């Protein structure tokens, strides 16, 4: 027999992956376009999964997002950026896994320190989202500084400052969004799942 809650945990993971598939394919709930920027909500989903189910599961959900990004970069790219950058699995998958890891570790460390849950969730969410931005930026810089052979052979060197500024300007509102929304959504869900995982 499985341990109590094991099947529920399994199904919750499946549901979170389903939500992420949904968010990557429907613009309204996956991305919020603000002017020329489009900030993603999906990192908030990963943080919520992390806090509800633990660091490992958060990393799995983040990894699922990464793999989806990777596959989509080939077959159904969302932006010119994706066709250039996310066809590299290291850039698309690793930062997304680490969202879960960073958010989970931060939350565990802060949980006892702050009386109010929402504060620690918010800090974990901001850090998780920033991890994604910083790592994607950093890895783009590492991989594309030299003219490596590319799938689409675009001359990256001259585009690099442009790429970095786009991702960077997305990162700040993304982190703010994550920090505000994650506790608002997580707290009621936590009450719902209390004692059952």
């Amino acid at each position, binding site marked *: 027999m499985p341990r109590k809650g094991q099947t529920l945990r399994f199904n919750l993971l499946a549901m979170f992956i389903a939500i992420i598939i949904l968010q990557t394919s429907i613009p309204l709930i996956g991305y919020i376009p603000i002017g020329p920027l489009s900030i993603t909500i999906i990192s908030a989903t990963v943080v919520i999964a992390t806090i509800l189910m633990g660091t490992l599961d958060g990393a799995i959900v983040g990894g699922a997002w990464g793999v989806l990004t990777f596959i989509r970069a*080939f077959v*159904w*790219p969302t932006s010119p950026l994706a066709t250039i950058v996310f066809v590299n699995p290291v850039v698309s998958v690793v930062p997304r896994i680490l969202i879960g890891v960073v958010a989970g570790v931060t939350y565990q460390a802060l949980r006892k320190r702050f009386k109010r849950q929402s504060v620690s969730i918010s800090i974990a969410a901001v850090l998780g989202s920033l991890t994604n931005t910083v790592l994607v930026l950093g890895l783009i810089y590492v991989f594309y500084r030299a003219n490596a052979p590319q799938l689409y052979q675009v001359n990256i060197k*001259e585009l690099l400052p442009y790429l970095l500024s786009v991702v960077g300007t997305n990162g700040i509102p993304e982190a703010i969004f994550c920090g505000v929304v994650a506790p608002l*959504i997580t707290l009621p869900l936590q009450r719902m799942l209390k004692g059952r995982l």
Partner: protein
Amino acid sequence: MSNFIFGRYLPGHSWIHRMSPQSKLLLSFYFVIVIFFANNGYSYGLLSALIVFVILMSGVSIAYFLKGIRPLIWLIVFTVLLQVLFSSGGHVLWHFGPFSITDQSLINGGFIFIRFLLIIMISTVLTLTTTPLAIADGVQTVLKPLKKVKFPVDTLALMLSIALRFVPTLMDEMETILNAQRARGVDFGSGSLKHRVKAAVPLLVPLFTGAINHAENLSTAMEARGFSDSEHRTKYRLYKWQFRDTISWIVFLLVGGLVLVFRKY
């Protein structure tokens, strides 16, 4: 709505429909890798001919493929333009500030355009002729060697098929929630960041709550039926390697070999 996996499957009995999902999946990967090696007119021509042949074999009308490409066309054009304007080398035909067009870059731009089309086409063939559940099954078979290093392949595959099963359900619920909020006068299309955040929360909370309810009901149902772990399950449908898979592999491998030969010219 850009459904890249769902609602795309078209039932049929063509050669491609009846191939096993694992070999379709692997052949698609293999094809993308071969595209990577193509570097001149001959090899691109050969690959294009192969993809046209595959589309004809799938028995799906070409209109479906064109419909799949339409929303992506601007993106493809934009990427090709980047390539044409920013690459260097060859005879310069026109230049203005940082932009320049050379004969070399025009040819490369054309090749990139074909590359995009080929990759999108092969993936469209895969999703048009294979159900999402069969794809999940194919993933399970393809990843089977990882079992040797204790990677929970079967658990992953079951999780993937549950996730794929619930995507349309959650999508319907999402639609309902959106309409409910619209009926209350929420405007999702405009406003500042603060406004957008305020609009997003009442969408996401019911979506997550609904998903958690599904997970709970499904767990109860699974445990009531004696679900213990996913590593020792048997299957209702078995997808076996067939003669037609072998034939298809031979064709694809031959084309791959020819592309390697054409590289030298």
